[in-house]
């Protein structure tokens, strides 16, 4: 059978081909132009036949190279530009340019050539390509800027890692990681767990639940990340797509916070312990002081008693016998001195005990109904011998109040003793008044007086309002007196003038 009869005619094939077929001669003139060429280029056949393609469908800028190539072929009878698809830009009849895909085939005819160019308008493809590329660019940009590590691996090696992954793991490029074994960047302590979970995920196809895992950086450092992964198909292969969030800082902060809280707890416990220790020490001190004071009182009591017994015996002696009289005269002053010194020691011990009690907050006031006038009178007779102190006024002559009589007696005694000490022997006047809800006692001496700047200090501990060399003493009396008066809700004060004497006033609320 004739070959040409079997196949459809070449013309029919060319004419109906789904792409443009353009035939040109060695001079570049169009000799063939199929239906599709008309559509693609917008040139009707009868108009373009015989015209040069370089002057019709080729943008001007390509002409030179085209001629160059053509010459090259005609000289060499071969060219690298034949028989392979090329992407070029063509010119439409309406003047617009569009992208084409073309293949050139040469056909020897007689002793020249014809060229058949198979052309496709790839405008749409190009557009799709551009869209895809721009979408790819967008996606790439998202992946690059995502503060989340995105990786794809096939269960063994990494296939893809984004910029964040690279950054988190301390590498410089993705290439350093791609191809590496996944387990090589997992911290040894988590490797088994990771293997297990990958197996389960691949079996069930379910995404792995959110999980914290430890990974190794390039420099050997450790990062802790929250990992979420799903199974996907990547290039047709079942793979795992994993998202990771670096929580190392958060974890470190948590650990630091825990450590700090532990430290605070320890400091607090330590403080509590130290406080308890301090309290114990204070209790011990107070107990010691009170025991010491008691211990001091025992020998003092003993000595005191002995001296007083001696005294009483001496007092009973009849001074008529000259020998005894001489003996009495010798012994009596000595005994008197003993007596005085024991009294001083006793007072000192008592005052110290009171000061420590005040310190320990143990100064307690035991109130009872008592008569202030009576109290003052007996204090005067007991602590101010002779005629030096006089109760010059008591108005009314019985003032009942709810006070600690022992302690008030202590205050009055202290004031009287001070008045005597600094009174320069001059008369001391005592006044007791009761008005409405307040009772007051005033003790006035006409002695050295107290300087203005000292008047405030004298009620403080260890303060004295007179020169140490002249008057001695350690100044606890007024401090204790003030504490006692304060404990009663009262007030103690002084008015004085240097050289003229002082008046001490004690005011006490009467009621309960």
């Amino acid at each position, binding site marked *: 059978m004739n070959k040409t009869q079997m196949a459809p005619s070449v013309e029919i094939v060319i004419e109906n081909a789904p792409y443009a077929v353009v035939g040109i001669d060695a001079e570049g003139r169009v000799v063939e132009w199929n239906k599709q060429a008309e559509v693609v280029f917008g040139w009707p056949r009868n108009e373009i036949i015989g015209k040069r393609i370089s002057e019709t469908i080729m943008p001007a800028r390509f002409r030179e190279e085209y001629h160059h190539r053509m010459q090259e072929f005609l000289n060499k009878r071969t060219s690298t530009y034949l028989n392979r698809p090329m992407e070029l830009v063509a010119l439409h009849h309406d003047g617009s340019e569009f992208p084409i895909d073309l293949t050139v085939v040469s056909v020897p005819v007689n002793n020249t050539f014809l060229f058949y160019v198979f052309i496709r308008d790839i405008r749409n493809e190009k557009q799709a390509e551009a869209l895809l590329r721009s979408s790819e660019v967008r996606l790439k940009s998202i992946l690059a800027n995502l503060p989340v590590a995105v990786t794809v691996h096939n269960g063994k090696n990494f296939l893809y890692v984004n910029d964040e992954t690279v950054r988190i793991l301390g590498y410089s490029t993705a290439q350093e990681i791609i191809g590496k074994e996944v387990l090589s960047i997992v911290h040894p302590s988590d490797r088994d767990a990771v293997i297990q979970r990958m197996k389960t995920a691949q079996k069930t196809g379910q995404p792995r639940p959110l999980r914290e895992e430890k990974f190794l950086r390039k420099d050997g450092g450790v990062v802790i990340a929250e990992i979420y992964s799903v199974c996907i198909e990547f290039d047709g292969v079942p793979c795992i797509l994993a998202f990771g969030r670096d929580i190392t800082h958060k974890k470190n902060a948590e650990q630091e916070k825990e450590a700090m809280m532990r430290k605070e707890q320890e400091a607090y416990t330590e403080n509590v312990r130290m406080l308890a220790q301090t309290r114990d020490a204070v209790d011990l001190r107070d107990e010691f002081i009170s025991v010491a004071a008691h211990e001091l*009182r025992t020998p003092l009591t003993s000595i005191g008693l002995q001296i*007083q*017994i001696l005294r009483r015996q001496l007092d009973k002696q009849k001074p008529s016998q000259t020998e005894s009289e001489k003996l009495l005269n010798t012994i009596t002053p000595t005994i008197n001195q003993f007596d005085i010194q024991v009294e001083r020691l006793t007072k000192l011990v008592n005052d110290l005990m009171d000061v420590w009690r005040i310190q320990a907050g143990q100064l307690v006031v035991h109130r009872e109904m008592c008569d202030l006038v009576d109290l003052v009178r007996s204090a005067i007779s007991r602590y101010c011998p002779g005629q030096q102190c006089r109760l010059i006024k008591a108005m009314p002559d019985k003032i009942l109040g709810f006070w600690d009589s022992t302690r008030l007696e202590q205050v009055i005694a202290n004031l009287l003793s001070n008045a005597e000490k600094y009174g320069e022997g001059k008369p001391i006047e005592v006044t007791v008044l009761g008005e409405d809800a307040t009772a007051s006692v005033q003790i006035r001496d006409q002695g050295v007086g107290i300087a203005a700047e000292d008047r405030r200090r004298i009620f403080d501990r260890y303060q004295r309002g007179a020169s140490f060399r002249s008057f001695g003493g350690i100044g606890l009396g007024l401090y204790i007196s003030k504490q006692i008066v304060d404990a009663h809700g009262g007030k103690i004060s002084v008015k004085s003038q240097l050289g003229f004497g002082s008046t001490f006033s004690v005011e006490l609320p009467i009621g309960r």
Partner: protein
Amino acid sequence: MKTVLIIEDDTPIREALSQALELEGYSVYSASNGKEGLEILRLLPAPCLILLDLMMPIMNGWEFADAVQQDNILMTIPIVVVTAYAETAKSVKSKEVIKKPVNLDRLMDCVKRYCG
């Protein structure tokens, strides 16, 4: 004969008090703690006054006072507490409290008041 019972654990003080009272013409029983004091009260005729120290071993002053309160006869004997701890003495049922170191004049006044 007027008798005073002294209950005091410190020997020098106990002996000095005894001596002082005897010199004044009183007769003296003495005990070094509350238990001894109770024994004396059981065996001998009642004194006109008990001088009671508080801080003592075996049976202290508070315990002695409580025990005395249990007995209808003993509870009628006046007690004067002689102690350094004047504040704590308030819980004891006593006629008076004399603070240590003791002022002998005051003590003698007190004894005279209850014993004559």
